């Protein structure tokens, strides 16, 4: 199929890939939402979660919820800024989509393999801050405003630890391209042992921990969910959104979780790379499966922490970012650089 690409024309291929990725976002959101938010959370809380919709353990629940949201009335507060209010969810979803562009699922299964893939991914993921601020301000609601302001401060603060964690990986891999990072992990060896490849989680374990914490904050998940503090602000910046606009936010939230889990899997666990599988054809078939498995493992960690811990207060949250995570990240880069040069 891919060999026919030259005949089809790169524009068409790009369009097909874009459509596939656009479809992946809600599917990813639904899968993550169902498995972790509905089922895993339920079982951790001594209950069952949805059991009826769709028959087998309620797998249809979120799809049904999506349909329900789509048919709801479009309500907008009277004093809301109409255009900004309408555009905010779109901004968030667009930012998610843009991250998906660089995540590889196989040797050829990537929308665009940018040389500065990592840099690009982190840059566009911070676009969602704008969407959140737009939502909070345009809602004409003080609770929403409080949530949006908290979100702005938090998301910007946690960009740095995210970046610093990733810089360690880049230093070790020697390239910013995500495909390159995957291939380096698949092909290199750990102290001479060839079988496992060299997933960066082994050497970059500090970076991995840092990335997970920062990703948790970027996704506004507990313990960093001050912007959406349910017992205080009742959904914070999303509080005035209903119907399909809320669906956009929901898909944006879980789609971004999917994306960040995918990024973590790619950067630290080896992505689609299976050591020993070199052929492109096999890689294209098994790669997505491998990526999906690793992604779910990372998402499991993220959601497990989400359901267990209480939330940090805003000032404590900022203190954690600026006083602890950033120095640790800098130290991590120093160490990585030292080892890279010395060995």
């Amino acid at each position, binding site marked *: 199929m891919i060999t026919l690409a030259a005949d089809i024309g790169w524009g068409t291929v790009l369009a097909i890939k874009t459509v596939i990725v656009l479809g992946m976002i809600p599917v990813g959101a639904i899968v993550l939402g169902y498995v972790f938010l509905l089922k895993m*959370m339920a079982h*951790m*809380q*001594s*209950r069952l979660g949805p059991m009826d919709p769709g028959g087998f353990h309620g797998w249809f629940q979120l799809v049904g919820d999506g349909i329900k949201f789509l048919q709801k009335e479009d309500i907008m507060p009277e004093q809301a800024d109409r255009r900004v209010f309408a555009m905010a969810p779109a901004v968030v979803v667009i930012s998610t989509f843009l991250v998906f562009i660089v995540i590889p699922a196989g040797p050829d299964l990537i929308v665009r393999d940018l040389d500065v893939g990592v840099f690009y991914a982190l840059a566009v993921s911070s676009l969602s801050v704008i969407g959140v601020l737009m939502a909070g301000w345009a809602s004409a609601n*003080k*609770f929403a405003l*409080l949530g949006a302001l*908290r979100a702005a401060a938090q998301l910007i603060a946690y960009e740095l630890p995210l970046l610093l964690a990733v810089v360690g990986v880049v230093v070790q891999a020697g390239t910013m391209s995500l495909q390159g990072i995957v291939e380096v992990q698949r092909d290199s060896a750990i102290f001479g042992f060839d079988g496992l490849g060299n997933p960066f989680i082994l050497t970059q374990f500090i970076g991995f921990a840092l990335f997970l914490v920062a990703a948790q904050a970027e996704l506004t998940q*507990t*313990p960093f*969910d*001050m912007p959406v*503090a*349910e*017992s*205080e602000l*009742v959904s914070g910046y999303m509080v005035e959104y209903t119907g399909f606009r809320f669906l956009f936010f929901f898909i944006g939230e879980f789609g971004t979780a999917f994306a960040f889990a995918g990024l973590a899997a790619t950067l630290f666990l080896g992505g689609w790379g299976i050591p020993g599988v070199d052929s492109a054809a096999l890689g294209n078939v098994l790669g997505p499966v491998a990526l999906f498995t690793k992604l779910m493992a990372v998402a499991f960690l993220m959601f497990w922490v989400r*359901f*267990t*811990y*209480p*939330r*940090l*207060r*805003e*000032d*404590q949250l900022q203190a954690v970012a600026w006083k602890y995570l950033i120095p640790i990240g800098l130290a991590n880069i120093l160490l990585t650089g030292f080892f890279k040069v010395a060995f």
Partner: protein
Amino acid sequence: MTEPTLLPGATPRLDPRDMRHLADAQVNVELDTGDMILNLGPQHPATHGTLRLVVRLDGERVIAADPVIGYMHRGYEKLTEVRSYPQITTLINRIDWLSSFANEVPFIHAAEQLMGIEAPPRAQYIRTILTELSRIATFVLFLGEMGLQVGALTPAFYGFRDREHVLNLIESATGGRFHPNFNRIGGLKDDLPWGWVNETRSTMKLVLDGCDVFDRLVAGNEIFEARTRGVGIIPGALGASYGVSGSNLRASGVDWDLRRDGKPYLVYPELDFKVWTHPDGDSFARYWVRLQETRESVRMVVQMLDQMPEGPIMAKVPRIIKVPAGEAWVETENPLGQMGYYVVSKGAIGPFRVKIRSASFSNVSILPWLLRGVYVPDVITILGSLYFILGDIDR
């Protein structure tokens, strides 16, 4: 009592005798410049019901807070003037609906004092057991939902699950999970069902295990400690002058428990139990004290099950209860604090005046003083740690 460390820039707390801050809380929108007025409630998940908290914020810091209550005011004191004593027993279940059996006890005790009747020992034991079971049910829910206030979703479900076990016990004995309406002047409505004692013993084991889970999951969590330590410190003497009572006051170091220190009532004089206090007075202390008191209540229930005598459960009372003229004041240690009834009788089948002193009313009255200078998330933590019930505030 140590003064709480204030956040930089917060206004220092005024002397409690200087009540001018209350005038500040009267908000006048036209004159406000940079501050924001936020309404927490009356519809809000954190206010435990229809409590409205009007706060004036400077960014995320509270400058003044004014609780507005009365959304659930049902006029209990007026209603008691046109009701007979058994009818009032039904009514007062609904004051503090989480621990509804405990609400009946002081009133029935006051009426029995006026009549000169004492319930038989078995009835007293069963009353005490049911009171302690209400306390366990209320506190176990608190242990769970306090986590919810600070953001942990999971402990709330454990709290509800453990509470269900205790409610099943209360239901099998009295017929009602929430509003048992089980006390009668002179004793109880019914004796315990067969097998109830064994069921209670096994449920108490479950509750103890649940307490250990809360100890590790919530009280032992670093983020929970970071959110609750040093937040909402109530100095002991000030709390007492406001009328703050129960676990809230004991968490400020005041060693005062009506079960041990007040006038003797029910079978507490025969029991061996410890009164738990904590010196800090912050939200974490309130959580900790309630956790220990839950365990203590479990031990008390087991003691009582071992010691319970056989015998009648109802003293001899006339068919129509006419309580002789007089005044009686009975205050008991209820789960939410000290609850008391001042019953004025003129010899009719219903009282002339009943003054209901509810615990949460006084606990919440300290909020205007307590909330100045704290952050908005801390407001939620403090509201959760004081643990009031709207029916108790509003009567």
